């Protein structure tokens, strides 16, 4: 089978790119998340003490970030009448690896319909991969929909941009002004 026609190739390449993100920006992750939470504070969406609550708990070489912050209320969003933000990370400090990452917003649209968006990096410290494979259940993936209880649960592969940029994507869905890469030219250029 040639490489061109190998249907697994793009997914295995994406999986390798996803794996590489686990070693990137790990030490800076907490500060990167806190800066984004601070942006939400300054825009009036989060309580001022929230960035300090994005803190750590460690046991052995494993460190968990964000558990103490939990799901925090988001205020003054243009398109959601009420919403909560959760950001969590599980890291191996000694090997400087990101094992798992979760960022999600759960809320209610003005018409009363539930809405949620989440971006996940699956835990690589467990014995088995989640899902059927690198296509149907990519390591970095996102969900957008009404909630976890609704089927089908759509899992969209996410680009290998790393955790801070994945959080940027999530936040731009609810706070457009946060856009980190604004267009500078027309689409044709």
């Amino acid at each position, binding site marked *: 089978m040639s490489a061109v026609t190998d249907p697994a190739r793009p997914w295995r390449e994406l999986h390798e790119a996803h794996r590489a993100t686990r070693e990137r920006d790990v*030490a*800076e992750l*907490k*500060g*990167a998340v*806190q*800066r984004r939470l*601070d942006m939400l504070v300054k825009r009036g969406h989060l309580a001022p003490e929230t*960035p*300090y*609550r*994005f*803190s*750590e*708990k*460690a*046991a*052995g070489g*494993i*460190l*968990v970030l*964000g*558990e*103490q*912050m*939990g*799901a925090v209320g988001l205020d003054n969003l243009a398109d959601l009448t009420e919403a*909560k*933000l*959760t950001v*969590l990370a*599980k890291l191996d*400090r*000694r090997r*400087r690896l990101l094992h*798992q990452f*979760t960022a*999600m917003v*759960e809320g209610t649209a003005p018409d009363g319909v539930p809405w949620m968006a989440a971006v996940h990096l699956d*835990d690589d410290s467990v014995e088995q991969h989640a899902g059927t494979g690198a296509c149907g259940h990519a390591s970095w993936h996102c969900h957008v929909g009404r*909630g*976890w*209880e609704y089927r089908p649960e759509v899992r969209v592969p996410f680009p290998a941009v790393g955790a801070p940029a994945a959080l940027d994507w999530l936040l731009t869905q609810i706070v457009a002004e946060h856009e980190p890469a604004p267009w500078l030219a027309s689409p044709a250029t």
Partner: protein
Amino acid sequence: MIVPTPTQVLVNALERDRGGLAIVIWPSLELRAWLIDEVAALPAMAEGGGAVVVKTVDDALSAGDRPVLLVPEDERVAVDDLDGSRDQFAERSYPLVLFLYRDGDGERLLPFRPSLASWARGSRVDPDQLAEVDLDAERKRFFAEVGEPPMTWLEKWHARQVPRDGAGYARAYWAELLCQP
């Protein structure tokens, strides 16, 4: 009981004495880089033109009135120099943060440098030690809050027998930490 997070303890240490000295203890070289990033990311460090990282007390004095992270290559020299130069840092508006290796030359010298020890009193922080949980106590706290051991709850979570939401995900990360051997 609300236990202050390592970050809150650090922030309190920096705010206890505006323009004062805080000492951050690091346990290993790889975690020193981690802690430097962590301190540098605190909002207080973005004030006064942003924080600078220096290696000597002379460089800290030359940096002027802005947040300074002093990460000395020679801890004994840095502790001695700081002990003798408290007056020169008296008019600062922004924190000076000294990084010392846990049980290293600098930290062992501190009790013998009363001026520096007094200057930093109450502002010595070991974030790594603070972050480390007492696993037995934390497992009991989990049981008291959730009604079952972390592993039992986690099995239900993975089997999707627990409703998925942000609070549930936070609890799952907590349970996974507590299932460490």
